[in-house]
Every structure is written in C-alpha cells, then in structure tokens.
C-alpha cells in the first residue's frame, strides 16, 4: 500500500503541482507566493521525464487510471516540459505588472497540467481527461486580452475544440471496444482486433484539429497573434504535438494498412505543407507567419503518419523520425515565438541587437532545414524512412523546404521590422529562456545519441547530403529576393486573410446569429435562406407553449399508456 503510494507520487506530483499553484492564484491571499512559483511549475514534469519512474496504477482514480512513460512519451515529455518551463519564466517577465497576470497563469498552468498528464497517461480515460483539460484551459489563454480579435479567435477555437472532443470521445470509446481495454502502451501487441476505418477516421479528424491538420487548422492563425507570446510558444510547440501524440498512440500504425485514410492523410499533409507556406508568406504579422509555418511543418508530420497508415512495415523506421521531427520543431518554434516577442523590444545596445538577430536566424535556419541544424537531422531521418512508400515523397519534402525557407525569411524580416522605433529593451527573464531553447535546439543538432525513442544520428559531412539540404534553402532565398524585386509593395498587404478557408466558408454566414428572443439579433441575413430558418427556430418556442398545456399532456399521457400497455402485453 505504502509502496504503491510512493510509486504514484512522482506522477501525481508532476500533474497536480501546476494545478495546485493555479488554485493558489485563485485565492487573493496566496496569490503572491503562487505567482512566484508559477514559472517553475513545469519542473516536476521535467524531473519525471528524466527519471522515468516505474509505471503506476491508481485504481482509485477515474475508472482505474494508469501512468506510464515509454520511450516516445519520455521524449515528448522532455521537450514539452522544457517548453513550458521556458515559456513560464518568459511569461513572468512578459506579463510583469499586468493586472490580469494571475488569471493568465491560472489558465496557463491548468493547460500545462493537462499537457503533462496526457503524455504521462497510460490509459485512454486519463489521456482523454487530460486532453480535455488542456484544450479547454487554453481557451482562457487565447482570449486573455479580451479584445474583439481575441474573442473571435476564441470562438473559432472553442467550437473546433468541442467538435474535436466529441469525435475523440466517440473514437476512443470505439477504440476501447476494439482493443478490449483502455491500456495505451503496448495495446497493439495484445489487440485481438484492429480498429476499423471509421474509428481510425474519427481519431484522425479529432486529433487533427489539435494538430492543425488542413482543413481544421483555421484556429491556429487566428489564435497565435492574439494570444500572449509565451502562450503562442507552448500552443505551437507543445500543445499542437498533443494531437500528433494522439495519432501515434491510437491509430493502428504499424499494425494494419488503411489505404483510403492514408491517401487523405498524405493529401492533407502535403496540402498543409505547401498551402501553409503560400498563405504564410502573404502575411504581415510575424506571429501569423509562424502559425502558418507550424501548419506547414505539422503537414510534413501528417505525411509521415499517412505513410505509416499506407505501409505498416515502414512504421518502425518512421516513428523515431517523426518523434525527432516533433522534438526539433517544438524547440525551434518555441524559440522563434519567444524571439518574436523580444524582437519587439530590441533595446538600444548594438550587441543585444546582434545577439537577437542571431537568435532569430538560428532556429529559422533549423526550421528551413539548413545543414548542421536539428532540422537537417529531422529531415534526413524522415527521408530515410520514407523510401518504401515512394521516392517522389522525398522530392516533395525538398520542395517543401523551399516553402519553409520562404516563410522563415518572411518571418525574420517582419520580426526585425516590428522592433523598429522601439526604445525599450527586453529583460533577462525573457532572454534566458529564449537562449535556453535555442541552445537546446543547437545541442539536438549535434545528434541525439543514447536517447531511446530517437534515431541514432550525427550531422553528416558528406558533400552529397550537404548539397541536398542546401539547395532548397538557397532556392528559397533566391526566390524571396526575386519576388521582392518584382513586387516591392508586398511587404504591407497580406493577400490571404488569417484563417484562410474559414474566412471563405463563413463569409456568407457572417451575419447569421441564432435568433434568441430578447437578445440583440442581427437582421442582415441572406434573406431567402436564413429567414425561414430563423422563423422555424423561434417557432419552436411557441410549440413548447403548446406542449405545456394540460390538453396536450393529457393526450400524450393517454397515448403513452396505450402504447406501453400494448408493448408490454405483446
């Protein structure tokens, strides 16, 4: 009993510590202490990732919960905890003195607890619980500023989250029905049956919303610019990966081929990789550009998932490559977002400006996949794993790298421009976490040796490899330069509204609101379609008035009595 409690302790501590601190923030008396503790709340999770204690069963929690970390979970937890830690420290400084800082941190910490918990979860119910906790808490982070754009982004986000939760709920239930249990890790080994395409499809779409898969990505470019910078860093770096982890955990990857889903998965992924690059270059807010870059990068990981669905035999090689890619992207994207916040306040010292530029360019190069970066390793690993599926994919990856380069150049120039005219300088509390993430990315570039779950790799010095990595970057630079020469005005006008397809899809309905009696309704509906709908909707209230008469009730009573008597007496 006591030893059980001791095994469970580190797991419970990692998940519940951030929540305890969040609770402290809610009470006005403990707020000071809690605010001081808040930036460091991810430390127990980091310790958990490094120590990876024995799995713990908690039969008294939910329907019998289990905590377990396999190699993949460990890597995910490592980069996730690192990101949350950096973002937390950064946020302390970023929101210093802001009146609602405690509210931001409360949501931030609850989302953190959910993110840590879902990675450490060893059963489906706990995973879903933590996933929902994270998804709903991040709503509060996104709408933090409370202005119109934030509320709109929040509305789009929460709608997608609710739909996603329902799909995942349905998918997980059916999944549990198929696999005969809720154990997450190692389920495939014991599975009597492989979940069918409907279940896989539900999970693919449900988690796809979180992973920013096209066309469910619309919340990303809306949420990132309005959320405070540290929140964007964890949204794009850590939380978006929760969708990926969901795919890895629940899809029958490496078990059964589902060609149809694989096709849609790869098509969506490639669409995201290229479409994201095009839409992102045509933005004038550096954080929107980064959001599109995340969509584009997640697209590449979606392609890998699709490849795994198409060719189960390729999965053992693909999995470590995907995990490496996720790690690299988390660290680099986190660094870029934190850097974007610092670039707005470059300060007056020339040294600081130079350091800042270098700090922006390094992770940008990693995202573009330039040689000797973590991105290069990740891309090579992915290319190595892909051939059994089709050589054309590898070429498409190189072309996607051109898009990434374009995005990154666009981002760096926008970010540097955003600081022009600002006299204030960012403080150490913001520089240090940024430097930490950039350094972590640089260390990853040296090659992840001895970390189970990641491929054994080292930077390659072969000229052929270096050339294959360099030409897309060079091509991207040339393309950008040429384009700027041809269309010099492109700097100021975004051609694609953030949220692209959402904007197209909702434009005809933009003025439609559910007409609620007594509420301010907007009459400007595309008349012919919307007016009868609105009338039918309000008609439902008068129908209820009819139902509330004794007469109707008496009639219903009689009918039900007769029906039930006949059915029972059958």
């Amino acid at each position: 009993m006591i030893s059980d409690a001791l095994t469970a302790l580190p797991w419970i501590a990692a998940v519940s510590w951030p929540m305890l601190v969040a609770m402290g923030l809610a009470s006005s008396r403990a707020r000071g202490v809690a605010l001081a503790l808040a930036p460091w709340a991810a430390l127990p999770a980091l310790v958990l990732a490094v120590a990876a204690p024995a799995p713990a069963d908690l039969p008294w929690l939910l329907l019998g919960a289990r905590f377990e970390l396999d190699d993949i979970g460990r890597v995910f937890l490592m980069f996730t905890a690192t990101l949350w830690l950096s973002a937390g420290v950064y946020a302390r400084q970023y929101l210093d003195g802001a009146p609602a800082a405690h509210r931001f941190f409360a949501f931030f910490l609850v989302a953190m607890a959910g993110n840590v918990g879902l990675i450490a979860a060893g059963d489906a119910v706990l995973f879903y619980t933590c996933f929902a906790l994270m998804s709903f808490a991040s709503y509060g982070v996104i709408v933090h500023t409370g202005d119109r754009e934030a509320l709109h982004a929040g509305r789009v986000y929460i709608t997608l989250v609710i739909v996603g939760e329902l799909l995942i709920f349905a998918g997980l239930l059916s999944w549990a029905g198929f696999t005969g249990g809720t154990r997450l890790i190692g389920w495939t080994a014991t599975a009597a049956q492989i979940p069918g395409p409907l279940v896989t499809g539900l999970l693919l779409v449900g988690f796809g919303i979180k992973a920013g898969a096209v066309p469910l990505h619309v919340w990303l470019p809306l949420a990132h610019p309005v959320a405070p910078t540290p929140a964007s860093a964890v949204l794009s770096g850590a939380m978006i990966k929760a969708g990926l982890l969901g795919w890895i955990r629940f899809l029958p990857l490496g078990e059964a081929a589902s060609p149809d889903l694989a096709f849609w998965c790869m098509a969506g992924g490639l669409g995201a990789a290229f479409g994201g690059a095009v839409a992102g270059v045509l933005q004038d807010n550096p954080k929107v550009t980064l959001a599109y870059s995340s969509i584009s990068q997640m697209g590449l990981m979606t392609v890998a998932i699709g490849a795994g669905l198409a060719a189960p035999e390729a999965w053992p090689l693909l999995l470590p490559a995907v995990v490496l890619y996720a790690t690299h992207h988390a660290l680099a994207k986190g660094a870029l977002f934190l850097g974007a916040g610092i670039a707005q306040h470059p300060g007056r010292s020339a040294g600081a400006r130079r350091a800042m530029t270098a700090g922006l360019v390094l992770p940008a190069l990693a995202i573009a996949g330039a040689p000797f970066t973590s991105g290069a390793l990740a891309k090579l690993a992915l290319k190595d794993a892909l051939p059994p599926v089709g050589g054309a994919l590898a070429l498409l990856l190189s072309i996607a790298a051109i898009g990434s380069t374009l995005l990154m150049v666009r981002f760096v120039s926008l970010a540097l421009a955003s600081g022009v005219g600002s006299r204030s300088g960012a403080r150490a509390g913001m520089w240090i976490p940024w430097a930490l993430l950039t350094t972590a990315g640089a260390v990853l570039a040296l090659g992840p040796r001895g970390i189970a779950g990641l491929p054994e790799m080292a930077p390659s010095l072969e000229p052929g490899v270096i050339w294959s990595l360099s030409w897309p970057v060079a091509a991207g630079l040339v393309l950008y330069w040429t384009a700027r020469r041809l269309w010099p005005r492109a700097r100021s006008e975004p051609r694609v509204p953030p949220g692209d397809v959402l904007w197209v899809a909702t434009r005809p309905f933009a003025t439609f609101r559910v007409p609620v009696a007594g509420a301010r309704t907007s009459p400007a509906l595309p008349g012919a379609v919307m007016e009868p709908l609105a009338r039918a909707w309000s008609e439902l209230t008068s129908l209820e008035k009819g139902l509330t008469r004794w007469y109707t009730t008496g009639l219903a009573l009689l009918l039900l009595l007769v029906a039930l008597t006949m059915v029972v007496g059958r």
Partner: protein
Amino acid sequence: MTLTLWYALTGVALLVVGVYGLVSRVHVLRQIMAVNIVGAGVFLVLVAGAHRRPSGAIDPVPHAMVLTGIVVAVSATAVALAFARRLRADADERTDGAAREDEARAG
C-alpha cells in the same frame, strides 16, 4: 359480471371522467375537483380489489391503503386550495389590466 367488477369498472369510469376534467378545464377549482374525482375512482378500484379471496373474506390491506390514500389526497387538496385562494387574493389586490390578463392566462 360480478359486483366486484362493477365496482372496479365504475372506478375506472370515474378516473376517465376526472382526467378529462383535469385536462379540459382551465379554472383551478375545477381542476382540483377533477383530481379528487380521479382519486375517488382509484380508491374505488382499490376497494374492489379487497374482494379477492376465494373464501369471500375481505382483505384488509387495500382498505388500509385507501384510508392512507384519502389522508394524502385530503392534504394535497388542502394545499391546492390554499394556493388557489392565494392566487385569487393576489388577483383582487392588483386592479390593473395586466393583472387580469395574467390571471386569465394562469386560469
């Protein structure tokens, strides 16, 4: 047709009359009376059910139930009448047109 069955059928008939009254009348006093008619019908069925032994002896249990049931029905009727009086008094207090319109709706 035994006498018992006649009792039971009369009870059911009373029940039907009562339910019809309850759903078709809007005046609360009539509704309260209708519920009491339903009650009388149900009690009659219960009493008829006491005559169920082949020996012809009367089973006291349904009688006990009817007695308890009558107590319950009387208390409920008292509460309902108290409400009806309260509604009436309220309507008398308020002389404006809105009140009367209101009352018509509430029955």
